[in-house]
């Protein structure tokens, strides 16, 4: 993808997709949600075009208006519970000095929340008789969940780690460090055989479950400062093997972000990202449009530590 040639149409489509309330929905015309709005704000952050500046300002206003009293963000308009897109909203407001307190509120929510606890019985079973469990994982490690009433999974954990690490300038301390360490441990525990991650199961009833490239890229972005860890090395190698499989805007955008924050070339992926957009239009996904706009701009600035 040629930045000068291919990025302007993505930005134009992103601007056209903005809802009347200043947010972005999963697709144009759908109700605004936190994930798409946060990613769109990040995509427009470095754009000096007046229309983009105005759209970004309205997007930030939407995020500010929808932050909940507990500091977290809901899924979107009409939802009243803080949940998994909170770290993406934190990343979006972090860049604005006047919104540091907003970011700090979101980070505090992340420190205080996570996937639910398995309870004493499972803890005991895992320690005494792990083969009795059908899945191979340490259920006592707590990352972050998609839903407040659910278990910890890879993608929301990677987003939370990224936000907590990028947000150290506004919230730091032993509790933040401890939460980051536990989240990292959870990701390391969920590495697939041979490296990489899927949604979060490595083995079910003795059968290995393969990794997905898009989730592997997201997890590696969240772990970009842990290149010393064996899991990072094996998963980077798995990512190298899976690069040829990348064919969607979502996967290619995250792969480009992963390569950018690790200082690697992504020319081939950029070319395929343009082909993907031409072929499918990303199925109308505003989230993917925003991610592709970030990927063709300065992903290292948006997602790098």
């Amino acid at each position, binding site marked *: 993808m040629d930045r000068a040639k291919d990025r302007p149409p993505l930005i134009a489509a992103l601007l056209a997709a903005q809802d009347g309330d200043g947010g972005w929905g999963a697709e144009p015309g759908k109700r605004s949600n936190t994930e798409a709005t946060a990613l769109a704000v990040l995509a427009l952050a470095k754009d000096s075009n007046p229309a983009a500046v105005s759209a970004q300002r309205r997007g930030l206003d939407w995020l500010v208006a929808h932050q909940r009293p507990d500091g977290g963000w809901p899924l979107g308009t009409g939802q009243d519970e803080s949940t998994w897109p909170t770290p993406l909203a934190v990343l979006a407001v972090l860049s604005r000095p006047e919104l540091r307190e907003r970011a700090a509120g979101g980070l505090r929510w992340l420190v205080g929340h996570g996937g639910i606890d398995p309870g004493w019985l499972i803890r005991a079973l895992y320690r005494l008789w792990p083969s009795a469990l059908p899945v191979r994982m340490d259920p006592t490690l707590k990352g972050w969940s*998609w839903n407040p*009433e659910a278990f910890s999974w890879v993608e929301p954990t990677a987003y939370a780690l990224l936000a907590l690490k990028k947000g150290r300038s506004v919230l730091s301390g032993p509790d933040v460090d401890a939460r980051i360490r536990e989240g990292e441990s959870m990701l390391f525990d969920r590495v697939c055989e041979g490296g990489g991650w899927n949604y979060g199961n490595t083995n079910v009833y003795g059968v290995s479950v393969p990794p997905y490239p898009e989730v592997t890229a997201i997890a590696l972005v969240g772990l970009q400062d842990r290149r010393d860890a064996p899991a990072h090395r094996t998963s980077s190698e798995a990512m190298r093997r899976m690069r040829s499989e990348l*064919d*969607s805007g979502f996967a290619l955008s995250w792969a480009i972000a992963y390569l950018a924050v690790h200082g690697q070339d992504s020319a081939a992926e950029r070319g395929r990202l343009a082909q993907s957009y031409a072929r499918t239009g*990303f199925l109308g996904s505003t989230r993917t449009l925003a991610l592709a706009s970030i990927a063709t701009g300065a992903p290292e600035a948006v997602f790098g530590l």
Partner: protein
Amino acid sequence: MKVSMSRRRFLGAAAAVPVAAGCSRTPSWDRAAYRKADRSRVAILPARDYTVPLADVVLQGIRHFPLAVAGRKVVLKPNLVEFDPAGVINTHPAVIAAAVEAFRRLGAREVVVAEGPGHRRDTEHLVAASGLFRTLTDLGARYIDLNHDDVRSVTLRSRFTELGRLHLPETILGADLIVSMPKLKTHHWAGVTLSLKNMFGIVPGMVYGWPKNVLHWAGIHESVVDINSSLPAPQFAIVDGIVGMEGNGPIQGDPKRCGALIFGDDLVAVDATAARLMSIEPRKITYLEHAARFLGNAEHERIAQIGESLESLRQEFRVIPRFESARGVGGA
């Protein structure tokens, strides 16, 4: 946040497609709202492979039932889970295309294809790699990602789980006819996955995650029943049994040729028939046993068979050891 859970609930929560979590509450439903017909009808039509004129077969199958289609919005819900170029995981695009064409021929106002894959958030990859994107583009039909659709909270009409309410996609809530289009497959947690289990895919990942973990914690069999009891529109089923999957389904099993499409407007009867086609006793599948209490007919003597006979197409589908006791068909 501290929530304790039992071992069985954890097994359910941790697995992508978990075992039944079970439910301590007594199942309940509004007995006045559900009246099973004395008899249901299921059509089994032969289709040798995916190259035959499937739209004609599907049209013939639909016409066996008094479906109101003209002027209606029809939502086709296929089974799209993962993509494996060597596998038979998903409802074949040719069957989906045939259904689009058939419902259009019957005068539907709009026919859309909608699914919310349960493992993989990268829908663009699944839809493009599986060939469905090209198929739908050629037909000028829309694909709707139910995982990212606008949602509305609805009260569940039965209480096999303790969920009480679920967020469901507006596309499903706004449909005039919902057509479940599963693949004929065995399932390592549920025994079989057919038209009722296929409706797990309407539950939005944006709210419940990948995997749809909250449903797993609530109990897979119980969730299947509560979702299906609460669908707002009339339902129909078209099962892709041309090539099914046996063994360690729904993803890592092996292809099993069966050469049939199965149709019906009682999803319990369709699934019971499809299970018998796989030589699996439907009453030994927990969610079918639950559903047969009020949603439809599973007893063989209450199902009128149309088209090919069950016996002529029945196959022995392998299952994983924990479902060996479900093999064999009584009363068929």
